[in-house]
């Protein structure tokens, strides 16, 4: 039987980055399990020495196309050209914004199965390649296969795989591609202004042992202030749900959950938080969860270790005594 081609598409443009290293390491492992050949597809501008680094992680071959611009449509055309000529059984992309778009374009053009944001990939005799990802607001993990698709494509979450230098010396071949199509990109837009985005930093949360979470059940400033005071006393950082942040009670950098931060303190106390999935995914790694809520059926109690049915205001008044 012919070897399966396992592609890794590098999008770092001028070097082999560690994200690509992670994908190649996984591809190498899959190649062992599935009798495959690991090919790194490198578009951009770099040196041969840099490309050779792919062998460290287990690549068999690099296909290199020199180009000067990083444009999704151009890359789509080049990738299509390479694919049409050498084919692939699996294609792995990073999940950068660029590669998410590129992979979607590619899958749509060829009508291939595409699994987004994979956290694991395995090869099974009965199912072939199986892709794992989270869905339903990160509350479930799904195992996905491709059906009726010549090639399986996926994007991979950063740090899902470990970059691993193999302990065998591989003979790497570098194939220079000679794309004959146009390198023009069409400019159908004009940038009017561009500002740097401040990445907000909530470093105090990284090492916090105790965290107090505030939800909409905290209805007045007095209750909120009492929670903050208690926070000071116990050396706890105060965070909130999206609703509380939207209401302006806390800055965005202290929002915990799917569209905020994830935390893993020893103790998390949820004050007046209902426990929507989008919040739970951010706190599920807490060692101990204590929840205070006046609704005894609030979903937060499903994942709490300690359940306290009480009015937050009464509770915090007593707690602050």
């Amino acid at each position: 039987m012919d070897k399966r081609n396992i592609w890794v598409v590098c999008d770092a443009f001028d070097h082999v980055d560690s994200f690509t290293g992670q994908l190649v390491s996984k591809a190498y492992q899959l190649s062992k399990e599935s009798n495959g050949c690991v090919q790194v597809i490198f578009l951009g501008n770099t040196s041969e020495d840099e490309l050779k680094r792919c062998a460290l992680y287990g690549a068999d071959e690099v296909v290199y196309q020199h180009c000067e611009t990083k444009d999704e449509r151009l890359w789509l055309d080049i990738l299509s050209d390479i694919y049409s000529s050498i084919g692939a059984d699996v294609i792995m992309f990073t999940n950068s914004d660029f590669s998410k778009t590129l992979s979607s374009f590619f899958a749509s053009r060829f009508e291939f199965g595409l699994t987004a944001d994979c956290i694991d990939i395995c090869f099974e005799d009965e199912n072939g390649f199986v892709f794992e990802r989270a869905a339903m607001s990160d509350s479930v993990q799904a195992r996905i296969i491709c059906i009726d698709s010549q090639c399986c494509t996926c994007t991979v979450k950063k740090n899902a795989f470990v970059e691993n230098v193999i302990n065998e010396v591989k003979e790497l071949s570098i194939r220079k591609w000679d794309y004959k199509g146009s390198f023009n990109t069409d400019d159908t837009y004009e940038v009017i202004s561009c500002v740097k985005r401040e990445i907000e930093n909530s470093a105090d949360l990284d090492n916090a042992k105790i965290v107090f979470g505030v939800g909409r059940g905290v209805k007045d400033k007095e209750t909120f202030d009492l929670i903050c005071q208690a926070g000071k006393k116990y050396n706890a950082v105060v965070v909130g749900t999206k609703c509380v942040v939207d209401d302006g009670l806390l800055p965005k950098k202290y929002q915990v959950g799917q569209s905020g931060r994830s935390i893993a303190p020893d103790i998390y106390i949820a004050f007046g938080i209902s426990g929507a999935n989008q919040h739970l995914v951010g706190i599920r790694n807490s060692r101990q969860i204590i929840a205070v809520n006046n609704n005894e059926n609030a979903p937060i109690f499903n994942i709490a270790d300690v359940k306290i049915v009480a009015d937050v205001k009464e509770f915090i008044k007593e707690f602050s005594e």
Partner: protein
Amino acid sequence: MIKIVVCLKMVPGKLIDAERSGLIINPYDLFVLEKLAKLKKNTDISVIGICMGGESAREGLVRSKALVCDDIYWLNDIKFAQADTIATTKTLSAAIKKYIPDADAVICGGHAIDGETGQVPAELSEKLRITYFSSVTDIESFGHDSAVIVKKDEGHEMTVRCRYPFLLSVDSFLTYASNLNIIALKRAQKWEYKIISSEELGIAQTDCGAAGSKTKVINSVNIIYKKESIEVGGSIKEKADHVKKLLQQ
């Protein structure tokens, strides 16, 4: 008049509120609808909703209609069910090509909070062969031959003028709908929604729904584990003291 197509998905309401039953407008799509409703007040735009979904999508469509939509195409056929992104894209693109081929802008929410692949917008732009803008956070205005949008990329926020036609993937969302005008809502309830079957759309059965899909979920497991919790009873003082003790350990 600028013609704008909005792709609408209805998702389980319990995903944002455990006590909510039925389907709601995907929060990212809701942001788009509300934004368009604001812009429509002083710009001559026509907004056309397009939704693939069964009967349970009706309430969300009524709200979309009441909010801003001038017209709605409801792709409602059991043969469309269980579509992955490839089959969804094929169905939506077939409908846009057939019914709204002169659309100036197609706007999609960046994610649906159930499937959460975020792939449909880019896939759709490839099928429609129109320019694609991802990570759009805001839409500022619609002009005669272009629109002004705000988008982010790694580390920057850009204001961009884009020429029609284009497709936007919008990365902002709203969890709560603004209050709807009661009269508009009543009118939307009485409106006759065009239901489009696969046959009417002219799409082969093997191109849509489960049969047209290229991926299949073989199983899924819950990853938010339920825990056995200990309930602390007694007076409020006893409850507070219990927590104080835990914190002092």
